[in-house]
């Protein structure tokens, strides 16, 4: 659990970089800090593990005020993924991943096992990569090592600063999928920083949209999309609105507007939890059968689009 209460931070007398920020993130939840470059996302994150001291306000991690813990102890209980990896150039991949467990004085065998398990999960086969140095890896591989390093000690909280920032769009999508599929992240309290809207919607349980140090809106992705708190939020999301809406809406959300014909043969099954985006990908090749609340409907592309339009009215 991470909680911020009225946190502010100045650099110099004029520059209020973070302005009265409050939020709470529960275990199992991922809060995405979203915003333009320079709006104070990294600064907020760095106050949580005390790389910076807040100017005012309180920060709690697992119920304890961060100022009451020795900084080293606090930091070892929070995984940290940096904007530009920050891997130790003189450590091998496996040594990099083992840094925090070593600090926590795990025994060698346990560190070894943990490192190798993580490497396999992140598709960096230990046999090939364990003894390489960071400069021998591609940017994407380095970010995976950075992620593995943050996960290694199985800390209850995870701070991630643009963990997939340096990747090309394709790789970014695949690394993101791997990340989402990790069982490691269940039950962790995660704060993830990004300025990529699509990423925020895909990974965030809730999104905290910031501008110039202030929170503009905090809520579930659909809230920001369909119930924007102000013009900034609306215009921030506009460029990708259609795609976001398709991803935010599930078939079940449109159930009442979907036509109820049952005739066509030759259909593929689709779950009601699928997003419209995923459904459209399927429907381009053939109609699909969906079952929701003991009712079965067969849908095609036109029917889905009509339902979306109806829903938005």
């Amino acid at each position, binding site marked *: 659990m991470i909680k911020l209460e009225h946190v502010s931070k100045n650099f110099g007398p004029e520059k209020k970089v973070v302005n009265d920020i409050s939020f709470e993130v529960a275990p199992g939840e991922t809060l995405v800090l979203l915003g333009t470059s320079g709006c104070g996302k990294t600064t907020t994150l*760095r106050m949580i*593990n005390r*790389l910076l001291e807040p100017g005012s306000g309180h920060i709690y991690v697992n119920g304890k005020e961060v100022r009451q813990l020795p*900084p*080293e*102890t*606090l*930091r*070892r209980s929070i995984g*940290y993924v*940096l*904007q*530009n*990896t*920050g*891997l*130790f*150039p*003189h450590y*091998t991949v496996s040594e990099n991943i083992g*840094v*925090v467990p070593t*600090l926590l004085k795990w025994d060698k065998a346990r560190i070894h096992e943990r490192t190798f398990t993580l490497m396999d999960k992140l598709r960096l086969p230990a046999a090939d990569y364990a003894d390489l140095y960071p400069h021998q890896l591609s940017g994407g591989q380095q970010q995976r090592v950075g992620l593995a*390093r943050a996960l290694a000690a199985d800390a209850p909280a995870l701070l991630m600063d643009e963990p997939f920032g340096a990747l090309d769009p394709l790789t970014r999508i695949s690394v993101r999928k791997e990340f989402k599929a990790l069982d490691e992240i269940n039950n962790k309290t995660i704060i993830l920083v990004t300025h990529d809207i699509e990423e925020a919607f895909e990974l965030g349980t809730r999104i905290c949209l910031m501008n110039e140090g202030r929170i503009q809106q905090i809520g579930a992705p659909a809230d920001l999309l369909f119930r924007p708190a102000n013009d900034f939020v609306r215009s921030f999301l506009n460029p990708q609105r259609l795609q976001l809406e398709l991803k935010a809406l599930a078939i079940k959300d449109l159930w009442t507007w979907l036509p109820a014909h049952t005739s066509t043969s030759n259909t593929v099954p689709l779950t009601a939890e699928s997003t419209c985006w995923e459904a459209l990908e399927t429907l381009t090749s053939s109609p699909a059968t969906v079952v929701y609340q003991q009712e079965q409907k067969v849908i095609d592309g036109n029917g889905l689009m009509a339902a979306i339009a109806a829903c938005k009215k």
Partner: protein
Amino acid sequence: METPETFLDFIQQQSGKLLEQTLTHTGLTFISVLLAVAIGVPAGILITRRKRLSVWVLGFAGVMQTIPSIALLGFMIPLLGIGPKPAIVALFLYALLPIIRNTFTGINGVDPSVTEAATGMGLSRRQLLYKVQLPLALPVIMAGIRTATVINVGVATLAAYIAAGGLGEFIFGGIALNNTHMMLAGAIPAALLAILFDWLLSLLQNINVRKARKMLYLLPVILLGLSSFYLLPNTYHSKMLAGFTPEFMGRKDGYLGLKSVYGLRIPTLVISDMIMYKAAYEKKLDVISGSSTDGRVKAFDLMVLEDDKHIFPPYYAAPIVRNETLQQYPELEPALNRLSGTINDSIMTELNYHVDYLKENPEKVAKDFLVAQKLWKPAGSRSKGSIRIGSKIFGDGYILANMYKMLIEGYTDLSAVTKTGLGGTKIVFDALTNNQIDMYPEYTGTGLLVILQAPQQVTDSIISDPQKVYDYVSTGFKKQYDIKWLKPIGFNNTYALMMRRADAEKLHISSISAFTHYVNQQ
């Protein structure tokens, strides 16, 4: 002692000494580098944390670096006396800047996102330093240590001037004695040491970063090992300690003569004549090889021991001039000869006393003397040619060169420039034969033994007669070098063994024989 024929002969004959000097040199270099690492690396680390201190610390180390090495050694003497202590401190101060600066730059050069990651993961400041900053800065720090080592191999040659030993003994002895073999026997090993150490340290520097982490702990051990050469036993059992100049150490009419003719057995240190007198006065040394007309003999109340077996040849000073120059300007010779017969031993000592001890300007002392002798005239037109007057770096030379300049400009229409401080005999004489200067004041004894290197039988037969020596060198120089000896000035600046007057009187020692008897008894 026979003069060895070839360089290799010299090395063979002096191998014991060469080894000792090389080990001392290595020890001096590394003990000072070790100290500089011990102080400089922590200082460099400190100033990465207290940026405001960095200006002061780097400034201090920078200033140390700009002080000329010989001056820095000189500053050390009043504080630490002579011998290895001041030499090590001076070398340490020289090594400091590259080590502090490279530690500072090395640590500051570590990628900030790496330090941020380390801190963010929960490394303490200490762990950050040892696990991240130092290993990553190590190549840069090692480069600093390399620079410091190479600098120190060079500067350590000067340690010979303050009785700390090292290869400088051969180098400066060789220069003073015009003995190329001896000079090279010091210079070549010194150069090789610099190359060797630089190479060894470069191996350490370029080693794989992974092993470098362990190397960090190995380094002090290696340095300590090399430093230990200096800790070789230095056993002096005698109550008397002699300090001789590098030149005196290698001369037949110096230490070699003392050994063979008088049978003197005494522990010796090699030391620069610039600090020798003061060291004797301060009881750091008991007997020194001075020159009889030196002003400091008077200043420090030393007593010259009588050379009762006549090993020190006459050293009458006279200007020596290129014949070519004399023919071009016939008016030159009479002008120079005006000084002849005006300065005896005690006057020269007095003049030197004014310069060496009262720190008066040699030019002023020269003028005052000429005015008192009614020899001074205002400069003439200076319209003809220019005469270049050289001198060695000792007091006599400075004063005489200035007198000659005034005489030339006063009594002829020539102008004159002085090029004083041309080092020892070899440098100034080479300058003369290579037409870099036209004249300089030289001593008959030096001409005989150092420049002409007269055969033993000749030396033995004429050495006790100053006139015969003068005639011999006059003929020899004319024949070999086309250089003319003008009339002697009058004083005899011979080598002399001297000790504190109070001690000499207490022990009833007045001659070298008596001194030898006293020392050898112990």
